[in-house]
């Protein structure tokens, strides 16, 4: 019966799990967005602009600290860290996009289909998810990269495979939550088949959860790519990557810390920006 007080305050979704002062696009959001756009542009320009030289060695200028000429300093071969960081970002971007695409399409699809159809389909999907969850992802990816050889596509696809499980889980539980809601059942009663029900009723309801997770997935992919190249299983030298640059600088941590710290800062700032934007977006797009 209608007994719960329906004041707006009493029925407001429990919002306290999020940080406060949101709803408006803040300076921080703009800063993050600007940073990510500049970074992506810089990384793409490194493909075409000859000025961005990630490979040119200059033995007259090894281990130089940051200066107007070399913003992030130089490494032990005299290569410009800033240029290498920009070029190295390409691999992160490609891998992140590929990974999230695979996750949303394959994982999201499996989760929605398994959750909506239930029965055997759900058992198969569930077993597949448990398989993916129980496999040591990082190790298996390293093994396959060793055997097949590294490359943007290989790395992206492999990380993407392990991103299927979390996307599928989120999509599946969102589907289960919505499948027995009466508006989905109402559409069945009106004569909608499973395909129509999935497209018009289920997917719009599942999308916000999947979309919110996409941001987390981007950061997870960037971290995974960085981890692989840090361990030496990413793109091979002299091809730069963030993890590789960070690893290369370790031996000079005492004398030339910028080699490690500069790409580290770029990496962390990227993850932080994506996280922040994701959080803002998921708290502002919720149903009022």
């Amino acid at each position, binding site marked *: 019966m*209608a007994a719960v*007080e329906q004041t*707006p305050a*009493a029925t407001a979704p429990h919002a306290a799990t999020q940080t406060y002062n949101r709803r408006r696009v803040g300076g921080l959001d703009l800063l993050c967005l600007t940073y990510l756009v500049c970074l992506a542009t810089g990384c793409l320009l490194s493909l075409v602009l000859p000025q961005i030289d990630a490979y040119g060695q200059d033995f007259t200028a090894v281990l130089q600290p940051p200066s107007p000429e070399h913003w992030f300093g130089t490494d032990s071969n005299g290569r410009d860290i800033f240029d290498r960081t920009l070029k190295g970002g390409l691999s992160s971007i490609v891998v992140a996009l590929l990974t999230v695409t695979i996750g949303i399409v394959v994982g999201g699809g499996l989760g929605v289909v398994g959750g909506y159809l239930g029965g055997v389909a759900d058992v198969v999907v569930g077993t597949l998810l448990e398989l993916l969850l129980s496999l040591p992802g990082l190790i298996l990816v390293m093994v396959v990269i060793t055997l097949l050889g590294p490359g943007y596509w290989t790395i992206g696809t492999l990380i993407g495979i392990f991103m299927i499980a979390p996307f599928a889980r989120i999509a599946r539980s969102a589907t289960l939550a919505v499948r027995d809601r009466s508006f989905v059942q109402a559409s069945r009663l009106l004569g909608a088949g499973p395909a129509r029900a999935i497209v018009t009723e289920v997917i719009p309801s599942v999308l916000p959860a999947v979309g919110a997770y996409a941001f987390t997935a981007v950061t997870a992919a960037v971290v995974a790519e960085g981890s692989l190249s840090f361990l030496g299983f990413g793109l091979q030298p002299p091809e730069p990557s963030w993890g590789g640059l960070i690893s290369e600088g370790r031996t000079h941590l005492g004398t030339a810390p910028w080699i490690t710290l500069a790409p580290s800062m770029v990496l962390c700032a990227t993850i932080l920006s994506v996280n922040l934007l994701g959080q803002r977006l998921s708290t502002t797009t919720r149903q009022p």
Partner: protein
Amino acid sequence: MTHHNHPLLSVRGLSVGLSDVDGRSAHVLEDVDLTVAASESVGLVGESGSGKSVLARTVLGLHPRTTHITAQGGISFAGNELLGLTPRAHRQTLGTDVSMIFQDPSSSLNPVVRVGAQILEATHRRQSSAHQRRALLTGLLESVGLTDVERIARAYPSELSGGQRQRVGIAAALAGAPRLLMADEPTTALDVSVQRTILDLLDQLRHERSLAMIHVTHDLALLSGRSDRIIVLYAGRVMEDGPTPQVLTQPAHPYTRALMEMRPRLRRPQPLPLPQIRGDLPRLDQPRTGCPFAPRCALADTRCHSERPPTTPVPESTLGHVAACWRTVEAAALAVPLREPAGRSHP
């Protein structure tokens, strides 16, 4: 009839605004007066958004920690002023003198804590031996009509039926030996047949222990024969306040009348269509002028929309029966002076 000389609880001109973290705010109560004398039973009736539950919570100082409340007016309990105290001081002033029975027994009991421990929550501050606590627990469970006390005390809420859970909720509310019991829709989540046994139990306990009670409900019929007074709330304002028989037999406010007429009757059926009122419940986040019921009222004139009706004694009724309606004001102006009710005095 009991003499109610000293009000146990008195709420004077209480206005409450709530706002949540999203900055949405609403005027939930406006200028509400309410007194409850010792061992008096008051029915607080209203639909969604009437503010009836917020009123109960404001008295108890029990708002969700994430909502921000602004309150004006006064609330005093047994002579102590409560409004303006910090939540902590508020709770300490009340102690266990006021306790609450909640609407949904399945969500108001902690699913991971044994029932016995939850019942004794109100007693933890008192020094008592394990033996005393056990005796108290047994006594409480038996007084709410639960047999098989040992098993129930050790059970988790999910192992009990809905009716048993609400009895446990009542036992927990009684554990601190309260003087005022606040029952917030205590039977709404229960089946009809269970509903009656719980209401009977509450009546019995109230008489045995001389408890005052505020029974918050949306169902006027529930209060018939069970409460001393009825207060009807609409959109955060008191529409009508009076002794139960008078409110039920000669409702003065058009809203009270509508509430009674719109419910189909089981024993005296009437042909369809049922009498209905136009429109929807008002939104509390928008400013209201005049009588909040005016937009839905068949008797409303322009003054009803623009000017707030004062609380006026209802003519041809007993003392203490008041309504906030311009029609009552007009009737009172024409009526002969009030007759004095026999055997009853009111502060």
